[in-house]
């Protein structure tokens, strides 16, 4: 395959927890993460709250400074970019948040917010920008009249479209979408998801799609990485991962998603307990405290993320394919 547009290796994000001047410990939000994102591909990062998926998204854009590891954008190390190069990078990689309310200026008509982004980056002349604005609004399914409205005058779905329009205004290659449809009602969610799909085809975009909603991920992702306590526990193509999940955590996660149909019987793995604190992650395999098949081996040694079948379906579990398997 061609060179990945984004290549992340052994990324670590550690946050010190301080009380006054004393350091109480370290939260290992992301702890040794590696993945590739290819041109025109959607990679979904999934997992439950606190697994480090959003932190990863922010670290990739250098909105947060990584503690360790490497982030390469088209072969160039993001962590070593100068301020001016980083400024350019932000054009090429954009982020769309869960609620566009959080970044739109409440006192600015939304048209101005979109124009501002282009102006700051010195794109086009003033007249061209105005044309571009109406073109962008049209692309995301809104008409010109919306440019004069304020964020509070829009519905959640419309605000999300504005978030997307603003990201698109800079012609990015990569869009980090952090829970982009989580706050939306089903009927609006489907509209926005279709828009994401259309834009991907139209502009050849690559998405790093961060979501907790596995039903949504099933449809938008080409590949999926499942995270637990700052690490990837399983990754593979979406088809492979959803049809043939290997890691006990992935299996439990998938079985816990309620489906809109009344089935006669459904096999559900209900995990006991809660996700441990990332400040004191368990020894060995971090999932062993909740895993139905954990043994002494899992308490002691960290399983490597390895291919079990020789393809790119990787699993970090002693009991899948590897040494400990029965």
């Amino acid at each position, binding site marked *: 395959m061609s060179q990945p547009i984004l290549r992340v290796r052994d990324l670590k994000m550690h946050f010190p927890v301080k009380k006054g001047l004393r350091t109480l410990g370290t939260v290992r939000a992301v702890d040794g993460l590696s993945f590739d994102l290819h041109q025109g591909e959607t990679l979904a990062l999934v997992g439950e*709250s606190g697994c480090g998926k959003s932190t990863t998204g922010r670290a990739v854009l250098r909105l947060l400074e990584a503690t360790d590891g490497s982030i390469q954008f088209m072969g160039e190390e993001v962590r070593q970019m100068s301020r001016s190069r980083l400024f350019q990078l932000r054009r090429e990689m954009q982020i769309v948040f869960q609620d566009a309310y959080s970044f739109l200026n409440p006192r600015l008509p939304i048209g101005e917010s979109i124009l501002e982004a282009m102006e700051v980056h010195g794109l086009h002349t003033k007249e061209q920008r105005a044309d571009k604005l109406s073109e962008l609004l049209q692309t995301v399914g809104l008409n010109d009249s919306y440019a004069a409205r304020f964020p509070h005058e829009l519905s959640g779905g419309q605000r999300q479209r504005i978030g997307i329009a603003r990201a698109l205004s800079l012609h990015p290659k990569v869009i980090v979408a952090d829970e982009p449809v989580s706050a939306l009602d089903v*009927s609006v969610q*489907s509209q926005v998801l279709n828009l994401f799909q259309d834009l991907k085809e139209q502009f050849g975009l690559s998405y790093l799609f961060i979501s907790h909603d596995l*039903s949504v991920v099933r*449809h938008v992702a080409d590949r999926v990485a499942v995270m637990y306590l700052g690490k990837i526990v399983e990754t593979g193509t979406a088809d492979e991962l959803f049809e043939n999940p290997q890691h006990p955590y992935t299996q439990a996660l*998938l079985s816990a998603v309620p489906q809109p149909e009344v089935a006669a019987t459904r096999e559900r793995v209900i995990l006991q307990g*809660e*996700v441990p604190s990332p400040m004191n992650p368990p020894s060995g395999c971090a999932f062993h405290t909740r895993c139905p098949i954990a043994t002494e081996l899992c308490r002691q040694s960290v399983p490597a993320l390895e291919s079990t079948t020789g393809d790119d379906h990787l699993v970090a579990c002693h009991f899948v394919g590897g040494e400990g398997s029965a």
Partner: protein
Amino acid sequence: MSVLLDVRDLTVAFQSKDKAKTLVPALDGVSISIGRGETLGLVGESGCGKTLSSLAVMGLLPESARVQSGQLLFDGDDLLHLKDAERNKVRGVRIGMIFQDPMTSLSPYYTIGNQLMEGLRYHMGMSKKQAKERALDLLQKVGIPGPERVFHEYPEQLSGGMRQRVMIAIAISCEPDLLIADEPTTALDVTTQAQILDLLAELQRENGMSLILISHDLGVIAEMCSRVVVMYAGQVIEQSEAKALFADPTHPYTRALLAATPRMTEKQERFYQIPGAVPAPTEWGTGCRFRGRCEHATAECGEMPPLSRLDGARFVRCWYAAGQTLQGREVRA
């Protein structure tokens, strides 16, 4: 199954605060009934009136809300006409309620134990000692590890899932006949959601209480409920046994909603898209409120269809769906 709660023709409007005191309708002739021991699902998108209906039952409507007509018959008594003292014997005792975000219902200033004991002492007249014993029992029952420790903790010390368990413990503390759960798992992760749904189902089986589950998540509803009420723009538009509803929805809105819901079992290249948006109350007009977005809409839809019975427990508010079924019957006959 005898009827426990019978909401009849409930119409609620909000009064604006300015001089004009305009009334904006919110609920329009909503009728919902639930039997003893039944689990009823209430679904719909934001603003359809599902939460408002339950708040009306609890007597928790916002100050600006005006009940214009209707009855709320609980075990034969109209909750709308009870005196405060009588209502307090129902609310929190015979009807419990839990909300989406436990942090807004739990006080940050009191320990979990204190908040659990409050209801027991006030409603059940227990002594401090009795209430403490019962509170510890309840914490155990809702699956909180180390009840003794949690009893002395504050809400902020607990995780979201644990807080929701505490809320459930409080809601069931007086052994209610009816529990209303408003989006109880929306703020939780899926694995925690599975735990909480399991707990609710178990408590319901054990205590034989009725459960109204309000959710926008059709998956949660399908998993938990035996009967479902679908709401749209302040009205009930379809009502059916869960099995029939999910296998064969009749109202075009229910169909569209199900089609737009992503499923994990099959991959769709594109999602079914419902055109347009839910109309605001000022745009409701006189006809069917879904007609602007409906592919089957005709001139006839300019007149509001009644909620008509199709068969057995199945009701639909749609000229087209009702007509289709009747036609189908004629053909079969």
